[in-house]
Structure formats: structure tokens, C-alpha cells
């Protein structure tokens, strides 16, 4: 199910005696929307991602993904919610080094019965869904599937990470600087493939980057500095 995101009056600080890092009166993403969030390092980006993923909890305010209030769930319920409904892509080193290409791509299905079920529904099996997505990401499985994942190029690794974020159709994909380690060609290819799959499944996409050149590709652009009134200087990257 495609997910919307709503943040209202969110305040976050690491400790009571430290400055407020995030202070977001309102931030919303509609279901199926593809939004570009720009933010320089130090704008509270990582903290926002941890809040959306349910890894961190705001001191005040509500964080809703779909119809669930993450701030009202227990920490293990947030972990389960994340496994079931959110796919993540990070900047680099996205893969578990000791798992195969396919295992890396289907990893969320090991932790989420819901995503395993959707993978089964969509492709007839968890591994089939992972293989289908890897193929859609332009990875030649005949050639690559036997190789250790750390032997893949960065571009290939990021495409495996994208397949993982999409496996079992989570409904919300959050990408954190997924292209900043890639060269021009790899970046274009990665974005084309990612957008193709996001569109095919009508997933919500939150794409965080400081690279403003990518902005025109998205439905909407939000500068984190505009929505966040939190302290600038003290924020961790």
C-alpha cells in the first residue's frame, strides 16, 4: 500500500541540555508523490531520516506514515513497521558483504512477512521478486549473481540497494544521497531505473540530496532549511 508522510510540530534534540536539531511545524508528502528534499550537511537530514524510519523518536509532535503514528508505537513496533512499509537506499556501502547479490536484494523479506507475502503475490516468490527487480535495475544476473557483492562497482551496488528498497513493494522509498558516490553516467542510469520502478509500483519517494541539478526530475522540491527551524550550527550532518 502506498504511504503518505505527515510531520506536525516535530521537535528533536539529542539531550535536554542540547540544542533543538529539528523543529518542523509541518512537512507532508502525499501518497505516490515523488519529493526532492534538499539540504546541505548540517541541516538535520540524518535525523529526519531516523525519525521517518522510526529509529529516533521526537520529543514532541507527531510523525505519521500512512495512517500509523510512529511516535505512538513501541520501539519494536516501529522496527516492524519500518520493515513492512519503508525501503531505504543510502549513499554508499549499502550491502551486507557476506550475502550474495540476490540475498542482499531480498533481505527485507527475511524481516517482514508482509513484504515476503507481497513479493510472492507479485512475482511468485521472494527470490523471484528480488531477481526480477535486479534484472529491471539493469544487472546482468547471469554474469553477476555468483560474484561477491563487494566486487561490484559502486553503481552496481547502488542498483542492488535500489532493488532491495523496492522488493516486496513497501509503499515508501526513502533515498539518502543515493547518487552522490556515482559518476555522471552511472547517476543518470541509476535515476532512470529507480524512477521506472517507482512509477511502475506507484510508490512514494522521498529523495534527499544536496545536488540541486536533480530537482527538475521530481514532482515537488522542499528545502530542509525552509521547513526546519532548528539550530543550524550544532546539527550533526
Amino acid at each position, binding site marked *: 500500500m502506498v504511504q503518505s508522510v505527515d510531520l506536525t510540530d516535530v521537535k528533536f534534540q539529542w539531550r535536554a541540555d542540547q540544542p533543538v536539531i529539528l523543529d518542523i511545524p509541518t512537512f507532508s508528502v502525499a501518497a505516490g508523490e515523488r519529493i526532492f528534499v534538499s539540504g546541505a550537511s548540517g541541516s538535520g537530514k*540524518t535525523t529526519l*531520516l*531516523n525519525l521517518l*524510519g522510526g*529509529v*529516533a523518536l521526537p520529543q514532541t509532535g507527531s510523525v505519521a506514515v500512512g495512517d500509523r503514528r510512529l511516535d505512538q508505537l513501541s*520501539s*519494536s513496533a516501529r*522496527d*516492524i513497521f*519500518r*520493515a*513492512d512499509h519503508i525501503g*531505504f537506499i*543510502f549513499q554508499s*556501502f*549499502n*550491502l*551486507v*558483504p*557476506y*550475502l550474495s547479490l540476490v*540475498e542482499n536484494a531480498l*533481505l*527485507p523479506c*527475511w*524481516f*517482514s512477512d508482509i513484504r515476503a507475502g507481497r513479493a510472492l503475490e507479485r512475482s511468485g516468490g521472494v527470490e523471484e521478486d528480488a531477481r526480477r527487480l535486479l534484472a529491471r535495475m539493469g544487472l546482468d544476473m547471469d554474469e553477476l549473481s555468483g560474484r561477491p557483492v563487494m566486487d561490484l562497482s559502486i553503481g552496481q551496488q547502488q542498483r542492488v540497494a535500489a532493488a*532491495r528498497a523496492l522488493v516486496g513493494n513497501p509503499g515508501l522509498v526513502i533515498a*539518502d544521497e543515493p547518487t552522490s558516490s556515482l559518476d555522471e553516467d552511472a547517476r543518470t542510469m541509476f535515476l532512470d531505473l529507480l524512477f521506472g520502478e517507482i512509477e511502475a509500483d506507484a510508490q512514494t519517494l522521498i529523495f534527499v540530496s544536496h545536488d540541486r541539478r536533480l530537482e527538475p526530475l521530481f514532482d515537488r522540491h522542499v528545502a530542509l532549511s525552509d521547513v526546519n527551524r532548528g539550530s543550524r550550527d550544532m546539527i*550533526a*550532518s
Partner: protein
Amino acid sequence: MMPILRLAPKSLASRRVTVSFSIFAIAVSVMLLLGVERIRTEARASFSNTISGTDLVVGARSGSVPLLLYSVFRIGNATNNISWNSYRTLAANPRIAWTIPFSLGDSHRGFRVLGTNADYFEHFRYARSRSLKMAAGRPFDDVFDAVLGAEVAAALGYAVGDRVVIDHGVGSIGFASHKDKPFRVSGILAHTGTPVDRTVHVSLEGIEAIHIDWRGGAPDAGARIDAERVRQMNLQPRAITAFLVGLKSRFATFSVQRKINQFRAEPLLAILPGVALHELWSLMGTAENALAFISYFVVAAGIIGMATMLMSSLNERRREMAILRSVGARPVHIFSLFILEAIFVSGLGALAGLTLFYVGLVAAQPALEAQYGLFVAIGWPTSTEGIYLIAVVLAGGLAGIIPAVGALRRSLADGMVVRN
């Protein structure tokens, strides 16, 4: 926990070099643990099998352990003898079923010589109720017949009919020998796994015969008596060193013991062999326990090594933990992953140790038996050994808590993104 069961073996396999070293360290320690335990058990069993069916051991008054040592184990020497008359008087007690007289003090090329009589072959029992069996030949019949223990015959290569010269005293090579009166091997006993195997048995008359022309520990040059003439003489012994007693009823044990201990003609000591064996074993128990403790600590060292290996991997695995968190792993998954890895490593170590133990057992078995008279059977692991193996795995899992907590704390601090 299913995803963790899938991840742990793959994670370990990816670090197979360091993991193998940890497994090997635990395997070696487990092999030592099982080896010490097995030898301990077998030694204890073979020890308590040394003598059975004997109700009392009687010797000159000393301590129960020294008496047991020189009479049963043929270690050390008696402080005094028992006169033949006292022996006959006591042995006539109607409650006594049989006695076996022992006369000790000589040796043959390092093996003790025991003077006794035919009752020895009839009444002596070891390992619960086994009696002595001849592997070749017959018990002694003539004054100069000798019956060899299995190990004596094997070590010195004797066969029935060979000549044996007895040395005076019990030094490894006696400075004086009874070479004027050689003995003939009349029989060889079957293997028993007891000190009997290392004993040369002759008749009491034989012992008397070889000493008849000796005075004060040396041959009396002026009174030589040759082997043929000695046969004609009265060879009834004047004294013996000890004797074993079998009672008609076990209920008489304490009253007969008291009677012997209160014997007026000379100070004697009667002991219950089971009690004295226990006393002796508890003396050796210290060394035995020390050995066991050392093996426990070696296992602990192996497990600490494994925990260290897991601890040192924590930093390089932070990103892996962050990825797992991002795909939905809960903190309990992160914790269990490390515990499970610890359990796998210690479990594989225990299994490898068990294998090494059996390989070692097969390799060492002949040497243990030949050199120490210790027969270690190769059978299934005992329940104690099974408990040890389980304990090693559990201890491994417990030691895994330390790296697991470390991983958990780092993972909770990092969340889904590792900050550098």
C-alpha cells in the same frame, strides 16, 4: 529468529580465517578437557579394580596407605615382617575362609618378586570378581618355578621354560643376585591391568630357598648351599610380609579386624582395602583435581579468545548492523546475531574437539596401555563428557553476551546511518 539463523553462518563463513582460529583454539581446549576427564575416569576405575574380594589386608603395624602401597601396589617396602607363627595362628580363625600370604623384598630386573602360594591363583580377585588366568603354562609347582605377570613377560620377552635370576633387594638393578639358584618360568598370567602384570610370582619356599645361605643381606661365603641340596632342606618360611584375608561372612569384617589389630604376639595392622583405596585416591585427588582445573581454564581461555574475536569485529561491522536495522532488524536481532555466532563457534569448537579427542585416543591408546598399564576403552562419549560439551557451548553463548551488548549499544547509537 529465522533471519538471524540464516545470517549467522554466512557471517562466520565470510570471516573464515579468524573464525577457524577461534574454533581451533576451542577444539584443542575441549580435546584436553575430554582427555583429562577420560583418563581420570579410567585411572580411577583401574585403580579401584586393583583388588577385590579381599576383606582385609594384614601387615606389620604402620599406616593403612603404606600397607596398601607395598602389599597391593608393590610400591615401597614393608617396615617389618609378620612371623610365620603369628600368620598361622591368625589364619586359623574359624571365621576366615582363606588367606593369601605375601613375601616381598626381591626383584627381577626392576619388577617386584612376590612369594606366595597356590591360594593366590585360587582366591585372588580383581576388577570386581575376575580371577587370575594363565595365558601360558601352569602355576608354580616346583621350588624354583616362577609365574610372570603379563607385562613382565612382554617387556623382557620371556616364554615358558626360560630361566630367571632373581636380584636381591628392589633396586632397579640389584647389586647382588641369586644367580646360583635360577628359576624356571612355569607360566605366564593373562593381562589384568593391575600391578599383578608387573610382578614375578614364586612360591614362599622359593623365596626361602634363595635366602637360606644369606646372612645379613649378603651371601654367606662360608656356607654355600647349592640348588639341589636346598630342595632337601626344610623350606618353611620364617616370616612373611603381609597377607590377604577372605572371610566366610562379610559381617565378621570388623571383629576380625579388631582381633588382628589387638594381636598380642606382635603389632599388626589389618585394613579394609576399599577404605584404604579410597584414602589413597583422595591423596592423589589433589593432583587429579589440579589437572581438571587446568583443563577448565584452558577451555575458558579458548572461549575468551572467541569473545575477543567477536569484539574486535564490532567496529568493522557497524555498517552491516546499520544496514540490517534499515531493512527491519530489531535490536534483539542484532543481539541474537552475535550470541548465535558465539554459539556456532563454540559448538563447532566442541565438535572439532570431540573429533580431535577420538583421534588422539586411537593414537594414544596403545602407548597408554603399554607404558602406564591404563586401558582406555574407545566408546561413545559418557554422559559427563556430553555435559562438558553442552557446558562449553553454553559458556560460549554466555561469553557472546559481551560482544552482543557491544554490538547492540553501537547499533542503537548509530541507527540506520553510521556517522564517521
